[in-house]
Each structure stands twice: as C-alpha cells, then as structure tokens.
C-alpha cells in the first residue's frame, strides 16, 4: 500500500488531535497551531489530488485491523481530494481575512475555544468528505452541527444567541430525520457501510422487497440533510446567523458547513442509494421544486433587505437553491454543475462576507446601506473585492459564477422539457434579481458623496488585503481555468458509482 494513501486518515486524525491540543494553550498559540494544521492538511490534500489524478482510481482505506463490512472504512477519490483541498483553502483565507474582527469581537479568554471549534469543524468536514460508512457520517454530522453552533454564538449578543437556538432546532430536526433514515436503511439492508448498502439496495429494488421502508428512508435522509443545509423553506435561522456572527464565522458557515452536508447528500445519492433508485423514488423532484422556490424567494428577500450582511445571507439561500436544483435535474451534467457551484459559491460568498466587513469598518461599523454610501472610496481593497464578488454572483464572464450558470443552463437544456422550461425561467428571473440587488449595492458603495466617515482612517492590515487578493485570484482562476476543474469533477463523479 502506498504511503500517500494514508493522507485522508492522517488529515482527519491530525485535525481532531489539534482540537484537543488547542484546549491547553492560549489564544495566540491556538491561532498559530490552527493556521499550521490547516496549511499542512491543505498541502497534503493537494498531494493526494495529484496522486489520484495519476492513478485514476479511487481506493478505500481500512480504519483498523478489520476489513470492510466489519470495521470502519474511509474512501478517497478525485472529487473527495478536490473538496478537501478547496475547503482548506477557503477556511484558511476566511480565518486570515476576519482575524482582526475575531480578536476584537471575542473575549481574549475565549479565543482559544474558537480555534478548537474551527479545528473540530475541519475534522468533521474532512470526515464527511472521506467517510464510507453511514453511521460515521452521522457522528461527524453532529460534530459539525455543534461546532457550527459554537461559531455562531461565540460573539455573544442577543441576536447570535437567538440565531444559534434557531439553528440548533432546525439542525436537530434534520439530525433526527437523518438518524431515523439511517436506522431504517440498516433495518432493511443489514449494513452500515455505503458500498454494501448499495449492493443490497439494488437487489431490493429489483425484487421489490421492503419498498415502502426504502422510500421512507430515502425521503428522511434527503429531507434531513436539506434541512441542515438551509434549503429554502428551512432557512429561517440563516439570515441572523450569518448577519450577526463574526466575519470569519459567517464566511466559514456559508461556504463550508452547508456545503459539507450537500456533499454528503450527493455522496449518499451515488454511493448508498444508487442513482437509478433515487430517480425512481421521486424524492429528487421535491428537492428540485424546493430548489426552484429557493432561487426566487431568496433573491426576493435579499432585494428587500436593508442590511448588507443579511442581504448576502439571503443570497446564500438563493445559491443553495441553485445547487439543489442542479441535483434535482437528475443528470450527470446537473450534478457536475451543482458540484462546480459548490466550489464557486464557496469562493465567492466567503469573499463577499470578508469584503463586506471591510466596508462596514469604513462606515462606523454600520451595516445599513445608507451609511455604506461611498464606502468603496474609504476602503479601496474591500470595494474592489466586493465588486468582484458581486460580478461573479451575477454571472459576468471571466468570474466563477458565470461558469456555474453556464453549466446549469447547458444541463437543463439537455433535460426533459417539463423540467427544462421552469428551470430556464427560474434561472433567468433569479439572475435578474441577483443583478438588481448586487448592482444596487455596488453602485451605492461607489457613489461619491461626502460622508461623516470620510476623515476616519481605516486600518487596512496586510493580512486582510492579502486574503482579499487571494480570494479574488481564486475566483478568477475558477472562472478562467474551469475546464480542468470540470473534468476533475466529472472524473470524481464517475469514480463514485
């Protein structure tokens, strides 16, 4: 066995272990350990990606001395490695970009706790990406939920507590459904390992045994994960959680936490239930419908919002709608577009959150649009970065958002007509609405007016600007060099089945 194949196991255990170590040190060292660990895992994931691109084969890794159906197992393919690499990059940049705020908004004695949460969040994300066992997935979903709740409420004020309670309630409903779904699947198939469940499910679908429990289990797992990733009707916790938590938390939550659940859902669709069974169970049409509703309703709420952070949060609702719409199309192209949109949305949304913080800094910490007028002149890097993010969200060629919209439209043109028309119409409406609220914001921050905040100097640290520049580069790279990434995604999805 190649030594490089130990990388997934090593990165999960390393981040878990660093969480424990961080509890013993103060905030300063916690920060350094955290940055070091994320960088190491990022480098390792990059190496793994190259290795897998070379071998062109996924492999499973035994967690312990016992082979597949008896022991735990993790699995790595191109898509998993790509996601791990990407999540590490986003997490590192979000933490660096929001660091000043983090140090200001969190009590010094609680800063090391923040980094514990981040380390364990990273480990749970990696475990969700790599796992090949449903119950392991459930355990790490819970770690993910609890640490995300911690990230929301560590900036202690009434809004974040309320948001954290709402988030926990919705997440717990989701976890309850997910756990019951896993139990039912276990009951019908007798396995917890993804590949073994899949072979049993295929036999069950062929013979028609236990049809009702299977459909109920699929529905529960899909709805549970959809609730957890804030699909449209279950998004009530989202605006406050993203709007009032500290900037790094908002960036990490919007770009990584919900994406982790979506990735798990995609993995379950392919590796546990099997694509044909999912398609025949009709559950996917529900996700499709909710996705379409989310695309429109999220954008409408964002237009009527008067607070820049909450506006970006509502835009997240719309983007999650896009991702579910892509999954709901039920084709390989739709799925590719969804996975690409996970990447592109993660890169753009974290950029927007970090840039918005710079703009509010230049406007006396006010998040209201009226105070933000002309903010781009007071904090030029943040203004430019925000504009890039907005253009990417709207879908201007050259940025990452354009490619995902292109992929979505090509995917739905190849689809059956009764799904193609509503999708195209919704895509069009949603893009126009997107353009309205993002362009409104960009025009406002570039309106040259005299403002009471003109003479207040804005501290632009090197770290902040550096993070913004990296984010912008990431966006442009995703937009310009999309072909290799799309082919990697397609290769990874093929490895799934």
């Amino acid at each position, binding site marked *: 066995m190649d030594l490089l194949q130990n990388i997934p196991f090593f990165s999960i255990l390393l981040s878990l272990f660093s969480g424990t170590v961080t509890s013993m040190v103060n905030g300063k060292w916690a920060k350094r350990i955290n940055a070091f660990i994320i960088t190491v895992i990022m480098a390792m994931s990059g190496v793994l990606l190259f290795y897998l691109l070379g071998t062109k084969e996924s492999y499973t890794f035994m967690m312990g*001395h016992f082979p597949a159906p008896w022991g735990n197992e993790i699995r790595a393919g191109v898509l998993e490695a790509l996601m791990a690499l990407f999540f590490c990059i986003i997490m590192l940049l979000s933490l660096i970009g929001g660091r000043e705020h983090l140090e200001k908004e969190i009590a010094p004695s609680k800063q090391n706790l923040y980094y514990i949460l981040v380390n364990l969040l990273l480990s749970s994300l990696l475990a969700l990406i790599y796992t090949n066992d449903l119950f392991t997935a459930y355990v790490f979903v819970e*770690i993910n939920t609890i640490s995300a709740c911690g990230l929301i409420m560590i900036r202690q004020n009434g809004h974040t507590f309320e948001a954290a309670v709402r988030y926990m309630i919705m997440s717990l409903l989701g976890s309850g459904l997910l756990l019951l779904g896993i139990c039912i699947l276990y009951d019908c198939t007798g396995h917890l390992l993804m590949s073994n469940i899949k072979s049993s499910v295929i036999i069950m679908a062929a013979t028609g045994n236990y049809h009702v429990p299977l459909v109920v289990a699929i529905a529960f797992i899909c709805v549970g994960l959809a609730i957890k990733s804030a699909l449209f009707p279950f998004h009530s916790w989202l605006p406050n959680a993203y709007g009032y938590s500290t900037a790094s938390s908002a960036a990490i939550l919007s770009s990584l936490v919900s994406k982790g659940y979506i990735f798990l859902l995609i993995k379950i669709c392919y590796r546990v239930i099997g694509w044909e069974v999912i398609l025949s169970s009709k559950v996917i049409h529900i996700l499709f419908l909710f996705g379409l509703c989310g695309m429109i309703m999220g954008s409408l709420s964002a237009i009527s919002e008067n607070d820049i952070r909450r506006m970006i949060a509502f835009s997240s609702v719309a983007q999650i709608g896009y991702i579910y719409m892509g999954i709901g199309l039920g084709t390989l192209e739709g799925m590719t577009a969804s996975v690409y949109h996970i990447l592109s949305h993660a890169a753009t949304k974290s950029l927007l959150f970090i840039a918005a913080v710079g703009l509010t800094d230049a406007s006396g910490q006010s998040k209201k649009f009226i105070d933000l007028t002309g903010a781009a002149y007071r904090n030029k890097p943040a203004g430019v970065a925000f504009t890039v993010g907005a253009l990417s969200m709207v879908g201007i060629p050259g940025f990452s958002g354009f490619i995902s919209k292109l992929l979505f439209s090509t995917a739905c043109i190849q689809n059956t007509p009764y799904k193609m028309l509503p999708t195209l119409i919704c895509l069009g409406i949603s893009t126009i609405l997107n353009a309205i609220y993002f362009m409104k914001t960009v025009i406002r921050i570039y309106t040259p007016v005299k403002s009471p905040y003109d003479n207040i100097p804005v501290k632009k640290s090197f770290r902040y600007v550096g993070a913004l520049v990296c984010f912008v580069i990431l966006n442009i790279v995703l937009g310009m060099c999309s072909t290799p990434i799309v082919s990697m995604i397609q290769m990874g999805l093929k490895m799934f089945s």
Partner: protein
Amino acid sequence: MSKLRDEESYKKTKAYSFFRWYRGEKDPFLGEVEMQAGHPYKDKRTAEELMQEKEAIMDRVYDIGHNKEIKFFKTVYGIISVIFCLALTFVLLLMVSYSPKTGNPGNPNENEVPVRYIENGLQETGAVNIVTGMILDYRAFDTLGESHVLFIATITVFILLRIDKDEKGKEKDREEANDRNYEPKNDAILQVIAVIIVPLIIIFGIYVILNGHLSPGGGFSGGAIIGAGLILYLNAFGFAKTERFFTEKTYKIICFCSLSFYCLAKSYSFFTGANHLESGIPLGTPGAILSSGLILPLNICVGLVVACTMYAFYALFRKGGF
C-alpha cells in the same frame, strides 16, 4: 418504677429532644442548617409593575385581548400541529408495517457482520463483552468521533456559561449565575448520606469501567456513574470542598491526556491496520482483567472524560465555572 429525674437533667436527655421533635415543638433545621436569605431584588420596580410590563409585552407579541386574527392563528397553529403529527405518524406506521418482523431470526440485519462479531469477537478483540469489543475495536472510528462530540459540547457550554474570574465588572453576573447562594447549605442529612454513599458510587463506577470488556458497562456508563457521585458530593459539601481537588485546570489536564491518548492509540491501530502491519499489542487471556489489548486503557480514558464532562456540565450550569 425508676427514680424520677428532675426536670433539669431530663431536658438534657435524648428522649426529651425526641419527644419534643415528635410533638412538633422543635424544628430540626433551625440552628443546625445554615440558611441564607436570598438577596433582595435590586430592581426598584415592584412585582406588580414587572407583571404589568410583562403583560404589555405579551399583548404586543400575541395581542390576544384585541386581535381575533391572532387568536384564530393560534387555534389554526394548534390544529396544524396535530395534523402534522398525525401525518408523520401515519407515514412512519406505514413504514413499520412493511419492515421486517421484530425478533425474527431471519431478518436482513442477521448477516455475516454480527456472525463474525459473535463467533470471532472473543478471539479477535479479546473482549468478553461483544458490544464493547465492537465499539472500541471493530468500529472504533465512530467511538472516537463520539468522545469528541462530548468534548466539543463541553467547549460550547464553556463559551456560553463560563464567567471569567479575572474580568472586572462581572461580579453581578457571578452572583446571578451562582444559584447556590439561594439554597440552604450544609444540610446534615445530605452530608451524612453523602459520606456513606459517595465512596460506594465511585467505587462502583470504577468497577464498571474496569470491567467494561468483561461485563455490561464500559467507559461511558462507568464515567456517568462517577460523575453522578461527584455531583452528589458537590451538592452536599459545596464548591469550596470540591475545588480543592477539581478545578478547571484539572478538567483540562484530564481531558487533554485522555483524549490525546485515545487519539494516538487509535491512530496507531488504524495506521497499522490499514498498512497491514502487526500492531504488537498482546490480547491476553480472555476473561482476565488485564486483557483485550487497547480496550481497557481506552475504557479508562473514556470513563475519565465522561466523568469530568458530567461534573463540568453541572458546575457550569450551577455556578458558571469551577
């Protein structure tokens, strides 16, 4: 007839105090238990004014008195809740009616997996208790995640409820958080019972942890028992006594040591397992207390973490730190 005592010497006997207590003339708590009156309410407004304000808020939120629509909405909300519950029940019952029969030996989950656990578990893990062998050896990755769930939950409770000692201006918060201020202290009955029962509880907990691979129980149940013993001790004797041997620092050190040992031990066994190397950990004779390889030390680690976590939860909920 015995010699009658005079009243003075009779008053000193136990019989006298017993009959006085029996007749209800004496309060056994008075003068024995240290009672402390609650702090007077600092807010100058009277209780009535506060109630009025609360009612005003309730009015504004629900507006039950005036707004028929909201009342209607509340009724509809109740009805919809019941319908939702019934619909969910129906779907689940439908699912249950089609799922395999309970207790039937030929169910789908009776496959090769439990067969190997039962038939070879003793030889492969060395644990007599098959469930322990399963969760700490076959499926150890889940259990590793699970102990970190406990760890991260404590961290979030720390974030929410810990009141830092060195921060100024937090005296009021500390007062408010410490609800031991409002209850009687040094209850003689509780203390006597605790002296007898706490050592027994803790010894039982240790027994359950150490025999986790031989009998029902293990790290989690034993840890919870020890945690309960510590909480009882805390209730009887107060924070001043427990803080002599258990503070936040102790908690951190115990948690750190146990979880790191757990992580490292399991990393070693995952690594050797995946790369097909010999782990070199002897399994011992099944049934002996020092057997089954890593399971006993792991059970001890898990037990320590769980006991400390239970105590930490309680202390944080009661006082905001320990």
